[in-house]
Structures are given as structure tokens and as C-alpha cells.
């Protein structure tokens, strides 16, 4: 039984409808809201699985369903749904992870009076995200794209009374909007060039040969192919959403939201939407590869940005003290990884990593949430420690997640997906840099994850929260266990020996042999990272919260710089922020002084003209009129004497006048 493509809309509509219903549910029935959200998402999951089944039945066939939104000009704005392995697989992932995280939230937000709103926003997010994945139209994708942004904004600012949360929400929205403007421009350009925004439309879609050919064939400013320019603009949006350097600044701040939000939106799904977009429009991005004289290939930019981000995130994560910040920078780094993979052409590897990363990063965040929940909102790893015994389930599952992320060989999914990426980067002909960066990031990842695990779970408690911690309820631990199992099992979908996932996603995929050496290198790097981390943090755990970080002792300046996130926020504030403020001030001043001044000047001129005119009137004109008036009055008095009051007299005058007139006419006529 497969889902008919015409009913695809049900998948996003169920959670969206749930969101609308929850919004009108009375606030005193929070359980009802949560139940609605869970039921709707479960329904979506079921439908998504059915859709996946349909898509897998024939991976090459693209089930599409398009409809007209409204008519413009001679054409129309058309939207549509697309059921292909890429979208449906991710939809299943989103729904499944979402369901687990919803369940976790039941426990995490049990005491929050605004849990209803929370589930409302979460459902809204889930609906938009599913819509984004299943859209066959870039416009519909953009609509959902913005809606997930809205949900992200609302959820980051869920505790809006905390100024930091409010600030972070705004920052997230505006930063991603910068990228979105690029995306919007790209869409507009695409619409203008091809006349449609449908991905696949029976040969007329933007991802189909005809359009790609014409886009790659035309050039625009700077000798860029139009497809390159559009692809880069689309990538702007992807970079913003996926926290790529330089638009990564919002993602760590977004950790101000509740932890399930961080897990769902800012680790597993929404931030991966950028990667999904790149994978989705990969044919467009790759269209310029065939051009011999392109000044720059779009994919090169993607790969470079991804590499920089991967390294940057991993490096900064090393020096963070907030458990969620560490994970956030780890996310940035992993997203960079995925971009790198996509940029080097292995978009299937990117999606593979996206899937596994979604599982283990959600697991890690939920684990962190469990820790935070257990320790009464203690997030600073310097005041945690020794939780291994107190939170056994959380600790074990967190360790699974850590090993998956670090890429511990063979058993854990992260290893396989990372292998695929390394393999692709190694094979990239244009530059060896991404490969080297990826290798560095592998080691760094293993290092900082070991540090995190050691700091939180090993040793002795260093704060009050950690001392009094006890395990979270089952509603929170069960999702952890499920996710941990998935973090292990998912990896076997794409091993070099049986690359089912890659083949499913891309029927043209060919597994390349000869990865054994590479695998050995990466295993060695992982081992080195873990050992270094253990040596620094695990062997001699900190005894006191105020004790300096071991790294800060050895390389203080580097540590300070990394802890300050390499000063990106400050740099932006000093340059772009100040420029913006200055322009705003200038615009305001222009209004208040220049234009308003012009108006005032005109007004004063008008007043002066009025004054002159009045004087002229009084002195010159009125004199003449007064004289004329006097004369009239005198003549009137004279004329009044003829008014005798005798009606007959008047008639006589009339008759005489008539006779005179008639005579005049007659005689005059005779002449």
C-alpha cells in the first residue's frame, strides 16, 4: 500500500492542522494539546512511511503532483508535491525523530504552564518541515522554509521573558533572513529565466535537462554562468539555514531555546534543511561542471564553505563550556561536513551523514536535555561531572551518541557516513584542501566529544545540580534508548560493501573500491583524538568548577580565542551592525533635517509671500476700492431721488422707455 501522490499534502497538513487546533484549545487543557501534536505527527509518520514505500518501489520514477496556486500573466504560479527517495526518506526521519522528541518533551516540559504553546509551535514546525521536504516547487519549499524559520524563532524565544532568549530568537531570524534574501533572489531569477519554479514538471522543471542546459549556457555578471549565479544564491539560503560560516552566528545562540527544540530543530532537522536544499538542487549546482571556462564552480564554493565551517565549528567546540554550546558548534561543524560532501559531488554521502547525524545529534541533545533536566537547568560543564552513576541510562546513551559522532569504527553509524564523506573528499579532483580539512575535523571531533563526555559524566560532581541529580522519567529515557539504537543501526544502510542508501537516492551511484587505506587513516585519527581527549580530561577530571580548563593552561591564547568563538560576533557588531546603525541614523537625519527642512523653508517662503500680498492688498488695492465705493454710494444717493414710490409713475417710465426703445430699434433698423 503506497500513498497516492495526490494525498502528499496530508503529511504536512496533519501537524499543521494540529498546530491550528492546539492554538484554539483552551490553555487549561495542556494534555490535549500534546496529545493532538503526537497523534498528528504519528499519522504523518505513518503516511510518510507509506510514501517512502511508494518512492522506493521505483526509485527512478518521480511521483509528482502539481497544481495552480494562482494565475499571473499568461502563466500561473504552480506548486506541487514530489515523492522521491530523497524527500520521503528525510520525511520519515523527520517524523520519526520528531515523534521521539515530542515524547521526550512531554517529560521535559511537564511543569511548564505554556506547554500548550510549545506543542503548537512544534507541530507548526513539523508541518512546515515535512512540507519543505516533499515540495516539488521551490516556491513551496521557500514558503515552508520561512515557516520553519518562524517556528524556530518562536521556539528559540519560547522563554521570551529571558532577554537573552528574546535576543537570540531575533538574531536567528535576521541572520537566516540574510541568507533567505539570497535564496529569494535566486528563486526570482530562476522564475525569470525559466518561467517556472517547479523542480520536475515532465521535462519543463528547473532540474530537468532543458532548463539546466539553458541556465548553464547563459552567462551573467563576472562571466558566471547563470546556473552558477542562481546556485550560489540558493546556497546563500542553505548556508544561512545550516549555519555555515559566515552566517553561523545564530546557531550557538539558538541554544537559548528549550533543549528538545535544540535537538529537533537546531540539530536534527531544520538546520539540515540547507544540506537538503543543496542536495535537492544538486543538478543545478552541478550544471556548470561541464563548462570549461567557468571562473568558479558553484560546487567549489559549497565545498570550500563547508570545509571552513567544518574546521571552524570543530575548533570552537573544543573550548566551549556550555554543554549545549559544545553540541551546537559540533552541529555547525557536522553541517559543514555535509556541505563539504555535497560540494565534492557526493550529495548522497551528505544525505547519509544527515540521516545518521540527525539520530545521534538528537540523541546527544536529548541526553544533554536529560542532564539539564536532572540537574535543575545546569548547563555549565564545569559545574557538572560524575553523572555516570546518577544518570545511568542517560550516560550510556550519551556515550553511544558521542561515539557515533566521533566516528568510532564499525559499530556506530557516524563512522560509515563519515567514511563516505572522506572518501568523496579524497576523490575530489579540484583541490585536496577539503579532504585535509575533513581529516583535521575528524580528529578534533573525537577530541572535543571525549572532553564533553569526560567532563559531564566522569569524575565527581562539581556543583549542587550535579550532586542532587537523579535519572529522568521513562518518557524521556525511552526516546534516548530508541535513538541510541538507531544511531548504531542506521550506519549499516550505507557501508561501502552495501551502499543501499546511496543507490536508492541516486540510481547512478557507483561504489568505488579502494577505501581501505583511507579508512585506516581515519580510524587512526579518531583514536588519536579520543586518546588526546581522554588524556587531557578523563584521566584527571577537574576537581573544582573554578579550576581552569587544562587546555587553557597549555595554550591560553588559542583557548581564549576559541572560547570567544574567534570573535565573529564582535566582528559583525563592529562592522555590519555599526554600518547598519549608521545608515539608519543617516536615513533618519535625512528625513528630519534635510527633507523636513525643505518643507519648513517652503512654508516660511509661503508665509512671507502672504505677508507681502497682504500689505499690497491693504495699501494699494484697498485704497482704490474704497474710492470706488464712495463714488458708488454718492451716485446711489442721487439715483434714489428718482424713486417716488408711485407705481403708476414707474409704469409710465416703463412705457416711455419701451416706446423709446421700440422707436430706436425701428428707426435704427430702417437705416
Amino acid at each position, binding site marked *: 500500500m503506497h500513498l497516492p501522490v495526490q494525498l502528499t499534502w496530508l503529511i504536512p497538513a496533519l501537524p499543521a492542522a494540529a498546530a491550528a487546533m492546539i492554538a484554539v484549545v483552551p490553555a487549561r487543557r495542556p494534555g490535549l494539546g500534546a496529545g493532538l501534536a503526537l497523534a498528528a505527527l504519528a499519522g504523518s509518520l505513518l503516511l510518510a512511511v507509506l510514501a517512502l514505500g511508494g518512492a522506493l518501489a521505483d526509485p527512478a520514477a518521480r511521483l509528482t503532483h502539481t497544481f495552480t496556486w494562482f494565475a499571473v500573466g499568461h502563466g500561473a504560479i504552480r506548486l506541487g508535491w514530489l515523492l522521491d527517495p530523497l524527500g520521503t526518506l528525510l520525511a520519515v526521519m523527520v517524523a520519526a525523530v520528531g515523534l521521539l522528541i515530542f515524547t521526550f518533551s512531554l517529560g521535559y516540559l511537564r511543569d511548564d504552564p505554556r506547554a500548550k504553546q510549545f506543542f503548537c509551535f512544534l507541530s507548526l514546525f513539523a508541518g512546515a518541515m515535512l512540507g519543505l521536504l516533499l515540495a516539488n516547487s521551490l516556491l513551496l519549499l521557500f514558503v515552508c522554509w520561512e515557516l520553519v524559520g518562524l517556528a524556530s524563532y518562536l521556539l528559540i524565544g519560547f522563554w521570551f521573558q529571558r532577554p537573552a532568549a528574546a535576543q537570540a530568537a531575533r538574531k536567528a531570524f535576521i541572520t537566516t533572513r540574510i541568507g533567505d534574501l539570497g535564496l529569494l533572489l535566486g528563486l526570482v531569477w530562476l522564475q525569470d529565466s525559466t518561467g517556472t519554479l517547479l523542480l520536475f514538471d515532465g521535462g519543463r522543471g528547473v532540474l530537468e535537462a532543458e532548463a539546466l542546459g539553458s541556465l548553464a549556457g547563459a552567462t551573467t555578471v563576472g562571466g558566471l554562468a547563470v546556473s552558477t549565479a542562481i546556485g550560489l544564491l540558493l546556497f546563500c539560503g542553505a548556508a544561512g539555514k545550516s549555519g555555515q560560516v559566515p552566517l553561523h552566528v545564530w546557531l550557538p545562540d539558538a541554544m537559548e531555546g528549550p533543549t528538545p527544540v535544540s535537538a529537533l530543530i537546531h540539530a536534527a532537522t531544520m538546520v539540515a534543511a540547507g544540506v537538503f536544499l543543496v542536495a535537492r538542487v544538486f543538478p543545478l549546482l552541478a550544471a556548470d561542471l561541464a563548462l570549461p571556462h567557468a571562473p568558479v564552480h558553484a560546487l567549489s564554493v559549497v565545498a570550500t564553505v563547508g570545509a571552513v565551517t567544518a574546521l571552524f565549528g570543530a575548533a570552537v567546540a573544543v573550548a566551549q563550556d556550555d554543554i549545549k554550546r559544545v553540541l551546537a558548534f559540533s552541529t555547525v561543524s557536522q553541517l559543514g561536513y555535509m556541505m563539504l560532501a555535497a560540494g565534492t559531488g557526493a550529495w548522497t554521502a551528505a544525505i547519509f551523514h544527515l540521516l545518521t547525524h540527525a539520530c545521534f545529534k538528537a540523541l546527544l541533545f536529548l541526553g544533554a536535555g536529560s542532564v539539564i533536566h536532572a540537574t535543575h537547568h545546569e548547563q555549565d560543564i564545569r559545574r557538572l561531572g560524575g553523572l555516570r552513576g546518577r544518570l545511568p541510562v542517560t550516560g550510556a546513551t550519551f556515550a553511544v551518541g558521542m561515539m557515533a559522532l566521533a566516528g568510532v569504527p564499525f559499530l556506530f553509524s557516524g563512522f560509515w557516513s563519515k567514511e563516505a564523506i572522506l572518501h568523496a573528499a579524497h576523490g575530489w579532483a579540484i583541490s585536496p584542501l577539503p579532504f585535509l580539512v575533513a581529516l583535521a575535523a575528524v580528529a578534533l571531533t573525537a577530541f572535543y566529544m571525549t572532553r564533553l563526555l569526560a567532563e559531564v559524566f566522569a569524575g565527581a560532581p562539581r556543583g549542587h545540580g550535579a550532586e542532587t541529580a537523579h535519572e529522568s522519567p521513562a518518557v524521556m529515557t525511552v526516546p534516548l534508548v530508541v535513538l541510541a539504537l538507531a544511531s548504531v543501526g542506521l550506519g549499516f544502510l550505507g557501508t561501502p560493501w552495501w551502499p543501499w542508501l546511496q543507490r536508492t537516492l541516486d540510481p547512478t551511484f557507483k561504489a568505488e573500491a579502494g577505501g581501505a587505506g583511507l579508512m585506516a587513516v581515519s580510524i587512526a585519527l579518531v583514536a588519536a583524538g579520543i586518546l588526546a581527549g581522554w588524556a587531557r580530561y578523563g584521566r584527571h577530571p577537574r576537581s573544582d568548577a573554578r579550576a581552569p580548563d587544562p587546555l587553557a593552561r597549555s595554550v591560553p591564547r588559542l583557548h581564549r580565542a576559541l572560547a570567544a568563538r574567534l570573535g565573529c560576533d564582535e566582528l559583525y557588531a563592529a562592522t555590519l551592525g555599526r554600518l547598519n546603525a549608521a545608515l539608519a541614523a543617516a536615513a533618519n537625519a535625512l528625513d528630519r533635517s534635510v527633507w523636513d527642512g525643505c518643507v519648513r523653508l517652503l512654508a516660511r517662503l509661503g508665509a512671507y509671500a502672504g505677508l507681502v500680498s497682504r500689505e499690497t492688498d491693504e495699501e494699494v488695492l484697498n485704497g482704490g476700492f474704497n474710492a470706488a465705493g464712495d463714488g458708488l454710494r454718492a451716485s446711489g444717493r442721487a439715483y434714489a431721488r428718482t424713486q417716488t414710490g408711485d407705481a*403708476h409713475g414707474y409704469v*409710465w417710465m416703463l*412705457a*416711455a422707455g*419701451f*416706446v423709446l426703445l*421700440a*422707436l430706436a430699434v*425701428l428707426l435704427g433698423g430702417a437705416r
Partner: protein
Amino acid sequence: MIALAAIALGTLAAAAVALALRDLIHSALLLIASWVGIAAFYLWAGAEFIAFAQVLIYVGAISMVVLFAVLLTRPPTAPATPVRSGRTVPGFLAGGAVLGLLAGAVLSSPLPAGMGAAPAFGVRELGLKLLGPHAGALLATGALLTVALLGAVVLAAGRGKEDAP
């Protein structure tokens, strides 16, 4: 032509005698007769509607007002001696002069001769004219009549105190 002459002579005679008589009531009645004569002229000229309107308005309405006015303003006692004003002769002279002037003008002007067929301008055509191009004027006339009526009532009624028994 004979009919016209008869109508004209009758009308003029009635009018002339009316203006010469002392007795106001007889004057008024004779004037009414002359108005009827004018209506007859209208009938003769083919203006049927105007003729009936003339009768309705002059004989039916104005004559009543005139008669009322005459009765209301009759001196308590008829004047014993008619007041001879010195205007009679000049008046007739002036009237004659005007008549001469007009007659001279009429007779000396080149006017279309001959009698055309009676024009096809019936009540329907008149109505279309009145309610079509002249609708505004018609409305204005209605307003004028209303105002005149009210004004006449106010003028004739005077102050209530005076008339109270």
C-alpha cells in the same frame, strides 16, 4: 380667417368694455369672457392643450381669485363720484402709440404668409418636451408656484391677531 376675426373682435370687445366699466364685478366677468376668447384662439390655432389649460387656469382659478379680491376689497360704500384722474388722455395716447408702433412693426415686417398645415404637436409631444429637455424648468416652475402660493397665503392672511374675531 373669419373665425379668427370673430374671435379677435369678441375678445377685444370684451376686454375693452371690461376696462371701461365702473363696476368691478362686471369688469372681471367680461375679462373672463375675453380670456375664454383667447382660449378659443388657441383652439383655432391648434394648441388644444394650451386652450384647455387657459380655461382651467384663467377661468377656473385666476378668475376666482380676482372675484374674491374684488369682493374682499370693495369699499363699504360705492364712491359717489367717479374719480377722474388726469391720466386718461395721456394713457390712451400712450396706448395708441404703442399699438401704432406694434402694428407698424407687424405690418412692415416680412413675415411668412399663408397658412401651413396644423402642426403635429399634440399632448404627447408636449409632455415629452416638458419632461425631457425642460424637466428642470418644470421643476423650477413647480417650486415657484408652491412658493407663490405660500407667499400669497402669508400676504393675504396678514397677522392672525388682526383677523381674530
